[in-house]
């Protein structure tokens, strides 16, 4: 025979239900810090691709566009592990608290960011994202001794116009301050 405790619980339950009204009301729990749809801050993103390296499921990929690099997040494959947020040097990528992500098309489950690429002044090919070069220059100047700062800044401006291959080829023909250090 059923226990009295259960019967009491059933009568208690009749008076009170714990069900959410979700599709017609707010969700049952609103938790701060829920790991939902990933999002890129287009201002901050430099297109360095650290997130694509760290991504545990290859949901984030770097694609080469015409003259832009595309950071492509396919959250139909994302594991919502937050590794990208951990490694991003610019805090540009983060997981939002949005969870209503369903869609009719597989290809609609994407978030993109295009980062413009610099063209090499010598060969005309694209090589690095603009923003990344800016950041790189800034970082170098921050960490360098004050006495050679002005010289290095001039050099950086010259170097940063060329792609890696051309820089190597041209470095000895270019008239730069750093050359004399060798």
């Amino acid at each position: 025979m059923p226990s009295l405790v259960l019967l009491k619980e059933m009568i208690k339950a009749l008076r009170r239900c714990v069900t959410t009204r979700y599709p017609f009301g707010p969700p049952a729990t609103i938790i701060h810090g829920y790991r939902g749809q990933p999002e890129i801050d287009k201002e901050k993103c430099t297109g360095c691709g650290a997130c694509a390296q760290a991504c545990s499921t290859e949901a984030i990929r770097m694609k080469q566009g015409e003259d832009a690099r595309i950071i492509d997040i396919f959250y139909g494959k994302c594991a919502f592990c937050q590794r990208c947020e951990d490694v991003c040097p610019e805090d540009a990528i983060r997981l939002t608290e949005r969870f209503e992500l369903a869609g009719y098309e597989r290809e609609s489950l994407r978030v993109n960011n295009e980062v413009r690429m610099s063209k090499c002044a010598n060969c005309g090919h694209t090589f690095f994202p603009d923003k990344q070069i800016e950041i790189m220059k800034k970082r170098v100047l921050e960490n360098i001794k004050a006495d050679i700062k002005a010289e290095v800044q001039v050099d950086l401006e010259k170097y940063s116009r060329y792609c890696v291959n051309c820089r190597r080829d041209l470095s000895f023909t270019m008239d730069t301050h750093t050359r004399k250090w060798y």
Partner: protein
Amino acid sequence: MGLIDWARKKSPWITHAHCGGCNGCDIEIAAALTPRFDIERLGCLLKNNPRYSDVLIITGPVPKHTEPMLLRIYQQTPDPKIVMAIGECAIAGGIYVEEGYDNYSIARGADNAGGADKVVPVDVYVPGCPPKPEAIIHGLALALKKLPEKKLKAKASNTR
């Protein structure tokens, strides 16, 4: 036909096909039945019998081993039916499919991307790893919106 469309929307019976996932999505689907989320208030019943059901929920990356079974379940479901792919694995193979590595045990398409839609046509994709029950309910709501477009096939197919 208004009455029939209304009735179909109000009474989606579900069959859940576990196709080799990690169980995360499956317990979230089961959690959707329980007091906190209770999808019976939307008319859903988890029937686990393809003959009875209108909505086929697929979880997991569909290993080749399960592929024929999934196809059979799909064929056994009477029209009109809706197929939902729940979780990353069912959408594109998720963590189990990697570029540059040929995962021999998982069904994949030509572009090396996995997913349930390589085996049966999928109507609604619900991302999340796993999606929380609210997200599943949201996906179900989207699926029901699409239901009136589905028509009976001209000739009822005889399946085993």
